[in-house]
């Protein structure tokens, strides 16, 4: 744990550019090879969960990119897509480096969108909690079941079923639901004061020497 990073939180962000979301993410100790396959995969899935949460999510992500001043990294739909398809699970997977700067941009987008959706995310998770307490199937609540269904559809249409891990998920709705809920929990953390930094650091757990 020698690579400890202290976070300075700028408390004069009010009225400033929202670029602090990006700037608040510390540089992880990864080299020039950029993010690992696992990091690429986790970031793209997080954005996939956001798409299952709201319609028109990718448009909103592009608008958010402008708002937080990362248009130089994510210029347009193609740009966003070409970063996301570094996820090795995708049907349209592209082998390319995902630079730390690019990963930060994607995670900042997730942070931006989750903050807007804080209430929805909490409602869904509280619904899940209630259903689990009562021993009811998690799909018996309308909004939750809608989110899960949309996530499964997105996952199945975008991820390559010939990848063994994807096939394992596709084979079982329950596994995909658990994945969708796990991602929802991650999005909840993105809404917090320093939650985005926590999530960001967690993307590099087990990826450094």
């Amino acid at each position, binding site marked *: *744990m020698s*690579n*400890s*990073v*202290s*976070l300075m*939180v700028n408390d004069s962000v009010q009225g400033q550019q929202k670029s602090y979301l990006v700037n608040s993410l510390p540089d*992880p*100790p990864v080299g*020039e090879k950029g993010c690992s396959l696992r990091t690429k995969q986790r970031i793209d899935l997080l954005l996939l969960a956001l*798409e299952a949460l709201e*319609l*028109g999510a990718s448009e909103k992500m592009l608008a958010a990119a402008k708002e937080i001043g990362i248009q130089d990294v994510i210029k347009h739909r*193609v*740009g966003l897509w*070409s970063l996301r398809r570094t996820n090795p699970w995708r*049907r*349209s997977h*592209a082998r390319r*480096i995902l630079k730390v700067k690019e990963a930060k941009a994607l995670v900042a987008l997730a942070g931006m969108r989750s903050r807007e959706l804080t209430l929805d995310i909490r409602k869904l*998770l*509280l619904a*899940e*909690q209630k259903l*689990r307490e009562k021993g009811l199937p998690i799909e018996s609540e309308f909004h939750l079941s809608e989110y899960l*269904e*949309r996530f*499964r559809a997105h996952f*199945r*249409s975008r991820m390559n*079923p*010939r*990848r*063994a*891990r994807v*096939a*394992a*998920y*596709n084979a079982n709705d329950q*596994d*995909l639901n*658990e994945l969708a809920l*796990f991602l929802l929990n991650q999005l*909840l*953390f993105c809404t*917090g*004061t*320093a*939650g985005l*930094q*926590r*999530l960001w*650091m*967690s*993307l590099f*757990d*087990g*990826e*450094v*020497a």
Partner: protein
Amino acid sequence: MNTIRRQYNLPNCQLILEGLVDANADSSQVSGRPVLSTLINAECRFTGVETVLNGGRSFLDNLIAVVSAYAQEFLSGVYHTEAHPEEGSAIAFEKTNVPDRHRLLWYPETGAQGGVATEAKAVELTTVQLYDLVEAIDQLLTDNRTLPDLTLDLAPVSRRYRQADVPMAQRLAPAVVGLGSLAIAAGLFYLTPTPQEIEPPQARVEEVRDEEDSPEGLESPPGTDTDTDIESLDPEDSEDPETDETPLSSAELATLLADATQIGDATELSYLERELYRQLDRGWEDRNEINRDLEYRVAVGQDGAILSYEPIAGTSEGSDRQTPLPELAFIPTSASLPEEIADFRVVFTDNSVLQVSPWFGYAENPTLGPEIEDSATLRRLNDELYDTLIEEWTETPIFQRALRFRVGVLEDGTIADYQAENQPAADFFEETPLPDLAEPEAAGIGDGSLVPKEPLAQFDVVFRPNKVLEVSPQRGF
């Protein structure tokens, strides 16, 4: 000295601190709030939970450190030792059998100086409660008028703590039952019958198309200027009918592979060996995890796709999770199953070296396929290749050592094939224009076989860190 009370209220969690005001700090000028600099008592309550956690400064320090570590462990699925201190800490976390539950253990302080009880009081938290606790802590940490010496320290844990990579959902499964059945599922996925029908997400098709992030209606997408990219940007790409077919079951696959003919041609084998090595080398990330050599017999198709693998030489069934094999293996469909296959011996050594060799060896010396040998053509192509590469090489080099490649060029100057000849080249090939420029299909590579069908001129190409480019024919002019 005045005592002062600070409260951080979240829907499910309340963090209350009582302490002394630092009389020396100039408080009123900056924010009007005095600085709480010495903690007397910290209290942590959860809505609907009777147990109220409390203690002094060391309790609060433990709470912050352990909750931080546990939150990160929860987010990444990678074990954090700090989240589970063995003794002396007022706070620790335990895994539960339920995905949405986290057991927080509190060891109340005893009368003795700095001592804590040996018996813990347990509080079961939901993930939302855990989040609210983390958020209360983060609000405290960013409040520079309360214990300003506290800071948020985050760092990723080392590869050593990374467990075998299992699907995230299953990581949340019950600790005992879950892990057992999961290990089996992950290790023997070939033996698990794959579903006969993958439920087509028809009901959502329209919506999904709306949301599909592949750009539609963009004839010439800005920012991407290579043919390959434009081709794959086609949204139809994701509807490749082949990929929608039902993958074969393990039994069907085993029968079909047993009947398949082994590729004997040395050149073809060497191209497959290179492709297999490339895939595994790029996919093998956790090299420190292996403490003994892991050996596999791996079957690949004519296109280089990994079809199946089995452990050999005493390698255990479940150990494939320490290798990139499960991630890279493609389950073929009956339509995509190749007529001919090649078996390779693959060794992931405990000193991080990857070895790939044909199972049945080479019957003769492999070649690079048909070659252009005419010296006038070689001279012309040498100049053309240099010009193309120097023009396209726009990135400032970030590598420290020279990258050496073999590059195969068609008679018309098209780059059809390239191969890293040293480790820096394998690591940084994406920093060169080669991946964007290469058009393997132009030489018939990948059309049934990876061996080029058209003759290629073979060049040595060196990209140097000082941005110098060198091109020379492999066998001289």
